[in-house]
């Protein structure tokens, strides 16, 4: 059984379902049977449709091209439909959601899996930046300490090593003689 949801899929660009559209459907189904089934020459006449409703849903069966009274096995029809879902969908500008086939779940496409997960790339970028930043900061602080050691030890020497008795504090740390 097939269910068409044309209006909800296409909105303004919806086409009206009529005899010609039904003909297209039968033709695509015949195409699917030809390509993916046993290779016999299925024709539009072999696809029999019944119980059509305004919902645009209907039942169909496929007869063998060799003998019109012989019905093709349901499983083979299902298999052919499953393999050509995307072609059938695109013929009607619809998708798996809007063109339902009761009883055949679509073979879901596996999402494209890239070789490196993209999150690892983002992680690598961030960590690279962090690592570089840490190295830069450490190097700059080592350089700064190096300059301090060789340079101005004389003035601050007394200040940093000694302990001052604040009760005698003057403006200058060193008593003037």
């Amino acid at each position, binding site marked *: 059984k097939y269910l068409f949801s044309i209006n909800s899929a296409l909105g303004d660009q919806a086409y009206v379902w009529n005899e010609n559209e039904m003909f297209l459907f039968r033709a695509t189904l015949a195409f699917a049977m030809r390509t993916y089934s046993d290779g016999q020459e299925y024709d539009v006449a072999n696809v029999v449709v019944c119980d059509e409703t305004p919902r645009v849903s209907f039942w169909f069966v496929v007869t063998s091209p060799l003998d019109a009274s012989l019905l093709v096995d349901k499983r083979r029809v299902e298999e052919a439909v499953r393999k050509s879902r995307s072609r059938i969908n695109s013929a009607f500008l619809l998708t798996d959601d809007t063109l339902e086939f009761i009883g055949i779940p679509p073979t879901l496409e596996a999402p494209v899996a890239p070789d490196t997960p993209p999150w*690892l790339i983002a992680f690598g970028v961030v960590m690279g930046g*962090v690592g570089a930043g840490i190295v830069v900061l450490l190097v700059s602080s080592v350089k700064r300490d190096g300059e301090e050691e060789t340079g101005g030890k004389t003035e601050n020497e007394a200040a940093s090593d000694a302990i001052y008795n604040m009760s005698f504090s003057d403006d200058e740390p060193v008593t003037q003689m």
Partner: protein
Amino acid sequence: LITLEITERPKWDNKVQYMLTCIGFAVGLGNVWRFPYLCQIYGGGAFLIPYGIAFVFEGLPLLHMELAIGQRLRMGSVGVWNSISPYLGGLGVASMLVSFLVGLFYNMLLAWILWYFFHSFQSPLPWRDCPLNLNRTGYVSECEKSSPVNYFWYRETLNITPNIETSGPVQWWLVLCLASAWGLVYICFIRGIETIGKAIYVTATFPYLVLTIFLVRSLTLAGATDGLIYLFTPNWETLKNPNVWLDAATQIFFSLSLAFGGLIAFSSYNVQKNNCERDALIVGCVNSFTSIYASIPIFAILGFKANENYNNCQNWNILRLTNSFNIGDENITVENYDVWFNYLNATDPSEVKSLDLKTCNLQTFLDQSVSGTGLAFIVFTEAVINMPGAQVWAVLFFVMLFSLGLSSMFGNLEGVLTPLLDLHIIPSWIPKEIFTGLMCLSSFTVGLLFTLGSGNYWLEIFNSYVGSMPLLIIAFFEIISVVYIYGIDRFNDDIEWMTGRRPNIYWQATWRFISPLMLLVVFVAYVVIEAEKRPTYNTWNPDYVHFPLADVQHYPEWVYVICVLLSVLPVVSIPLVALYKFMGFLNKYIMKRHNPNPYGNELCHGEF
């Protein structure tokens, strides 16, 4: 006589850095994902009343006191309380321990935010679709039963175990994220306030930029007004519930990050002549304003999401009816659904009943309230999927959360670093950069606990037990110490000297009586309410009968013991240090009595 060493204490480059750092510390993840939740469950606009009262009578006075005492005594938390009285040294140690423990789990939150941030650079977003099962006929059952966003959070991010006893292995991807979170924290924290002061310009201001962008965007979404009306419509009945007052008091308290020692540390790097009263008012008001400001886009987006869910629910019903009764496509719409439903129910009630139509109610969708990680990683991510340009919004959101959390981490770490530096525990030959690196490394190592399969359960424990009761106790002792041991008159004099104005009657009343009383009441109420019920926790158990509902479990005994330890250990240092000092004092007293020394100079050997 006071002996001082003339090594320069680090200081802020300018006043703006100091203000931004305090604001950044106070404004954190809780402003975004806890306050809106409280507003929602406690009757919308009505919650602002208990919140405001708690702010005025508890939050502001404590904030002002911490900033003033740090600025006056120019030391971190341990040094400050030691100066007031050697018996109070334990208070500083308690603050330090709490800051350390909170820093451990807080950075795990940042690690999770980073994980989501890294994953936001994909199209489609990975939490939009369920992954396929092995034979590609359908989706993974755990995901189908719950939802793609839930699956992504619980399975692909946390790989969570069914209960806390099952530890599961260490999840290597979370270790990587935790390492990068600590790396980012380290690079800002590497030289203490020197580097923090530069980083804060970005991390404290960026969230406001993003919130404004979200505000504008969210107000244009469909269903935003539903969410906002729902948020702000006051339900005055909730004010009769004592839990509301308790939650308001605790919320304002934790929101301002009081009792961590971080604020004391920050203000200790100020010049002494600085108007700390105005600073306190600014920080407090900005913090509360941010909470309210953040709720608006959050609730607009929640309203949008509820609207989407409601529409999906209705469309699902419509599709079921359409397919079952073979009605023309799009004949049943949302508007005439009721007409059609009644008609079909009248003609063929058994068929309609067999369809299992859902009852779609917008209110139910709006009522789904979540806070914390659930809000950010489940609800918000689901909303973002439906917004055009989802990747941009996801990236912006997670960067905003990261900056909010990062600036709060600075306060946590300074609450540990400054006391250690002031106590001169660190040998002077270790450069500050190495020491901060060691701090980050050791926190990272202990924090690996949260990367286990059961990590989320442990984080909840830390959050509830460390980040709550110990802080209340510490704050209570803080205010008692300042007012009654240091002396409120001496404190008033200090503030007059620093700011040029004596604190007015509001500060006097709150410091002396109202705030300590409120803290005591809140603390007692908290203990009573928590001790009543045996603690339970929500687990994610795919084998649970009613999955995806949470399987509520009790904590096992050994875990409960750890919970109690976490609450008690930080504060036990308060009496322990007092006892230790007292023993020392007794010892000397006894020695003096036995050996009277004519020069009486053994007391001059400073031992502090």
